[in-house]
C-alpha cells in the first residue's frame, strides 16, 4: 500500500497550486485575501514536511500573519475610501480597464513556457546535491550557538541579516513618508468578552514571543519569528485602539525602529581590531553578543512591523488632508 505521507504531500502540493490559481481568479478581493492566508498556512505545512520548521514559523508569523493583517487593513481602507464598505462589495477596488482575453492567454502561454523551461532545469539539477552542510557542521562549534539556522543568520551570514533589518528600516521610513495623519476612525465597539480575551492573551503572546526568541539559539525560533509574534500584540493593541499613536510618540518610535539596526551594526564594528574583521565576534563572547543583538533586533522588528501595519506617521494634519486618511 502506498505511503499515506506520499498522499499527504501530493494533496498539499495540489492544494497549494489550486489555491494560488484561486487567489488570482476569485472575483471577490476579500475572498482572495483569505485564500492567500490559507495558502500561506498550507505552505508552512509543506515546509514542515520538508523539515524546515524555522521557515514554517517565519512564514506563518510574518508571511501569513502580519501580511494577512496588512492586506485586510488595506482592503478595508480602499473600500472605506471608495464608499463601498458593505456586505456585498465591489469585486475590485481600483478602477480598471478590462484586459482582452487574448492578452491574458498570450501571457499565460508565455509563463507556461517559462514554467516548462524551469521545470526541465529543475529536474536536470542534482537533487539533494551540493550544499553548505559540511561547512556549517564544521563551523557551528565556533559560532556561539547550537542551532544551524541561527548560526547562519547571526554569525556566518550576519551581513545579510543586518541588511535585511535595514530593508525593514527603509520600508518604515518610506511608509511614514508616504502616509501621515492621525487615524480618524471611531473606536470599534468591542464587548466585555474581548476585554477578557485581551487580558488573558496579550501577556501570553508576549511570553510566547520571548520564548521563541530565547529558544532560537538551540532550536527553531529566533529574532524574526519572535519579533513577528510580538508584533501581533502591537497589531491587536492598534486594532482595538487600546493604544493610539500620537505625534508625541514619534521620537520614541524612531528610536525603536533604529535600535536593532544600530546595535547590530555597532557591535559589528566594535568587535574589530586585534586581527579581527567586521562581524567577527570573539568566540568567548559570541553567545552573549548574539543574544544581545537578537534581543534588541526582536524589539525593533516588533515595533517596525506594528508600525508598518499602522502605516502612517502620526502627525496632526490639516482637516482637509486628514479627511480621507482615516
Amino acid at each position, binding site marked *: 500500500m502506498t505511503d499515506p505521507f506520499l498522499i499527504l504531500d501530493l494533496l498539499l502540493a495540489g492544494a497549494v497550486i489550486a489555491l494560488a490559481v484561486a487567489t488570482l481568479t476569485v472575483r471577490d478581493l476579500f475572498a482572495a485575501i483569505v485564500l492567500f492566508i490559507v495558502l500561506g498556512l498550507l505552505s508552512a505545512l509543506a515546509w514542515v514536511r520538508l523539515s*524546515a520548521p524555522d521557515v514554517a514559523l517565519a512564514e506563518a508569523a510574518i508571511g501569513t500573519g502580519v501580511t494577512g493583517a496588512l492586506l485586510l487593513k488595506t482592503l478595508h481602507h480602499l473600500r472605506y475610501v471608495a464608499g463601498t464598505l458593505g456586505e456585498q462589495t465591489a469585486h475590485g477596488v481600483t478602477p480598471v480597464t478590462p484586459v482582452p482575453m487574448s492578452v491574458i492567454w498570450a501571457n499565460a502561454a508565455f509563463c507556461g513556457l517559462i514554467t516548462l523551461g524551469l521545470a526541465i532545469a529543475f529536474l536536470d539539477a542534482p537533487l539533494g546535491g551540493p550544499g553548505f552542510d559540511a561547512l556549517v557542521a564544521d563551523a557551528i562549534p565556533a559560532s556561539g550557538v547550537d542551532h544551524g539556522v541561527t548560526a547562519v543568520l547571526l554569525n556566518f*551570514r550576519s551581513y545579510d541579516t543586518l541588511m535585511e533589518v535595514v530593508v525593514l528600516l527603509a520600508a518604515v521610513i518610506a511608509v511614514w513618508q508616504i502616509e501621515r495623519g492621525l487615524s480618524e476612525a471611531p473606536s470599534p465597539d468591542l464587548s466585555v468578552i474581548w476585554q477578557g480575551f485581551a487580558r488573558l492573551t496579550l501577556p501570553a503572546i508576549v511570553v510566547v514571543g520571548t520564548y521563541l526568541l530565547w529558544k532560537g539559539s538551540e532550536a527553531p525560533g529566533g529574532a524574526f519569528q519572535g519579533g513577528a509574534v510580538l508584533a501581533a500584540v502591537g497589531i491587536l493593541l492598534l486594532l482595538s485602539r487600546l493604544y493610539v499613536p500620537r505625534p508625541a510618540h514619534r521620537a520614541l518610535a524612531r528610536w525603536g525602529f533604529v535600535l536593532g539596526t544600530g546595535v547590530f551594526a555597532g557591535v559589528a564594528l566594535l568587535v574589530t581590531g586585534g586581527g579581527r574583521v567586521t562581524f567577527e565576534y570573539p568566540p568567548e563572547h559570541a553567545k552573549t553578543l548574539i543574544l544581545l543583538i537578537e534581543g534588541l533586533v526582536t524589539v525593533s522588528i516588533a515595533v517596525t512591523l506594528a508600525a508598518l501595519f499602522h502605516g502612517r506617521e502620526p502627525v496632526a494634519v490639516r482637516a482637509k488632508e486628514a479627511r480621507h486618511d482615516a
Partner: protein
Amino acid sequence: MTPDLIYGLTGIAVFAIGLTGALCAQDRLRRVLALKLCSLGAGFLLVVAAWREPPAAPDPVPHALVITGIVVMISATAVALALIRRLQSLEAEDDD
C-alpha cells in the same frame, strides 16, 4: 516520488502563476498578491534545495535565506500597500 520533487515542481508552478498574475492583473491589490505568490514560489524552491533524504538534516543556509526573503518581502509589500492606500485617498479627493 520524493517530497523535494513534488514540492519543487509546486514551487515552480506557484512562481509561474504569480508571474502570470503580475503581468495580467489590473487591480492594484491583486498585483501585490501575485507578487507574493512569486516570492512564495521562490521560497519553495530554496527550501526544496535544502532538503536531504532523512535522517540527514537539511542544509540550514537556504533556510536562513528564505527567512531573509520573507522579511524583505513583507517590507516591500508594506510599502506597496501604503502607496496604494495613499493613491486611493488622493484619487477619492479628486472625485469630490
